[in-house]
């Protein structure tokens, strides 16, 4: 832990440099645009919740250059991401892949919406009945029985 903190401190004290440096930019604007898109979805592994596109850290710079190298070599966007996941693990993706380990994460919004909707619908549908029959015959009898028992007890 101490090491990590020291590392973070060292990176911070290294001085703020711009995220994407002028010398990193690719000549082909289409390729550069793709590089920026990919970068925005990749985590700077030593930072706090920053993409490599936003981060000033040296590692982010290395990753940005790596992404551009792969693109120049002809990789598709998916291939670049797969390559980075193989190298750094899924931690590098800011949008985690859909899988058994992220099932709950991805399904929660839909589940809450659907179950909540059904719940609200059922609750609202069911409501008129008890209100319409404020005390039905059976309840009245039960009430009388209770009152009777109360009277007999006293």
């Amino acid at each position, binding site marked *: 832990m101490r090491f990590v903190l020291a590392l973070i401190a060292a990176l911070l*004290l290294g001085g703020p440099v711009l995220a994407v440096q002028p010398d990193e930019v690719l000549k082909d604007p289409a390729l550069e645009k793709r590089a920026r898109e990919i970068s*925005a979805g990749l*985590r700077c592994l030593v930072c706090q919740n920053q993409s490599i596109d936003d981060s000033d850290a040296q590692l982010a710079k290395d990753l940005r250059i790596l992404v551009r190298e792969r693109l120049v070599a002809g990789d598709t966007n998916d291939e670049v991401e797969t390559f980075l996941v193989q190298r750094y*693990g*899924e931690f590098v993706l*800011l949008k*985690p892949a859909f899988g058994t380990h992220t099932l709950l*994460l991805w399904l929660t919004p839909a589940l809450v919406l659907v179950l909540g909707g059904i719940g609200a619908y059922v609750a609202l549908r069911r409501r008129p009945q008890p209100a319409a029959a404020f005390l039905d015959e059976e309840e009245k009898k039960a009430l009388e029985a209770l009152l009777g028992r109360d009277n007999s007890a006293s």
Partner: protein
Amino acid sequence: MLVEAGHFALALALGLSLIQFVVPLWGARANDPVLMTVAPASALAVFACIAFSFLALTSAYLNSDFSVLNVVQNSHSAKPLVYKISGVWGNHEGSMLLWVLILALFGGVVALARNSIPMRLQANTLAVQAAVTIAFLLFILTTSNPFTRVVPAPLEGQDLNPLLQDPGLAIHPPLLYIGYVGFSISFAFACAALIDGRIDAVWARIVRPWTLGAWAFLTLGIAMGSYWAYYELGWGGWWFWDPVENASLMPWLAGTALMHSTVVMEKRDALKVWTILLAILTFSLSLLGTFLVRSGVLTSVHSFAVDPERGTFILGILILFIGGSLSLFAWRAPMLRQGGLFAPVSREGALVLNNLFLATACATVFIGTLYPLALEVLTGEKISVGAPFFNFTFLPLIVPLLLLLPLGQTLAWKRGNFLGTAQRLYAVFGLSLLVTVALFAFAYGGPVAAPLGVGLGVYLVLGSLNELVTRSWSKGTPLAVAWRKAKGLPRSTWGTAIAHAGVGLSVIGIAATAWGVEGLGSLKPGERLKAGDYEVRLERVIPRIEANYREDVAVLTVFDSGREIGTLETMKRLYVTRGMPTTEAGILTTGLGQVYASLGEMQADGSIGVRLYYKPLVLLIWIGALVMAAGGALSLTDRRLRIGAPARTKAAPPAAVPAE
């Protein structure tokens, strides 16, 4: 000496809170008015003690009393006065003290609102409030004491984290805490109602202004934090889906839902159980936010210290209050009787839908924020959940909500007519469609999302204000009459319309960021850099020395399509005491858009890296939030909600109802 007195006052406050917790609860149970009146008296005393304690710490900061550890760690004699004051809460211990100060302040206000709150409800509410105060006072006294002395006292302090040396720190945390902690009142009222087993429209009427007020402050606090991050962090983003931001967004979403469901409860006596549950959940999320930020589970600018003992303590508080209140809810809620009926297509129905979407959005943020932590603890797998995930899941939930907003606002209570309502919005649909198409044509080839989003925003603004128009004007009405009618509409109607229009303004601002352009380059003096139609010329880089930092200032001249429109200064600072560098973005506002520049490294050839953005309409994001809060504040002044009004106006003649 004053420092010790402050420490003592805090301990005294703890003792008084115990009285405020036990005696009124007992009094309410035994129906003893004498015991119940202990509640307001002790609440005021607790507030006085904590306020004294807070002032004692503030005075230690003002006098740069370096025999106090907290002052040593977070202050410096050369620090500007405003940061000496705001530095009081710019650290863990002080910010927790501010937290309980606001908690006690709210308790004090509830205590003073004696006339408008039934005695039993007030006693129970203040007792629950005291329970929260006790927990947090214990936390401060045992793990985060700001009054610890240090011997021997050092000659100079270690200064405040430079990122926090900003006017933002003076405003952002107090606003945010008033919001967070304000929801504790809704929570306390909910628990009190459960303890008493009674809840009705009167309860909703009493609780609503508190929720509304807390919500307005939280809105301001979040917007302020967002603007602060925007200009301080230097890469031009305004929302990062950072766990700390999410921690404040969750109570905001739940609080927004609560605010709307209390309306249903007040007007129609329906949704009682759900409203109570929401009140509990909203404050629980505020507590969760405090836990996430204060425990060091997340490391960022906001977590001033990483200390597992504190984390465990807050986790304990969290479990105690959330578990306790939910158990109370499970036990007592079935006893609550449901009231008013309504058809699915009605204002109530629309508000149920509003609650459904907001609750789902809140659940999405919740799972996205906590899932990586939980997964790592359970399986050791490390994943990241960042902005792309949230944008992908959050937008589909919010857009339908926004599309339905003007419709819901226009629908009648109890039983609405969907087609008739849509008809009243014809002009709004037409105009916003026109704007969207025009924007598509105007910005042809640009991002698709921008015109659609701006169109949505325009639809929201027009749709919200439409209600004011249709309620006061129909064909043939002279404008003077219409204006008089509009002025006669209840303030809460105006407030609703204005707050909803604020949502629209924010949406326009957010959507327009897609039209933003940026430029990147290394400049020597005299060289230029372009971003879209805007261009800057680097004039000079000059060093400057201030009291507690030194900086390199780059002066840039800004051009709009070749015409000079002003200059801006952007800085790279080095805070001497901590040896920590920061960048200060240079911003030139043109209309509602901003030209934004930040500095990079000095290159070997004497040039300096500059990143330039033009962000059209960006100010609307925060202006929208201000308008939302203003709408909330306007609703608060509605005569119906004025504190003390229900009890006092009995004898007064009924308020004039504007003719429809």
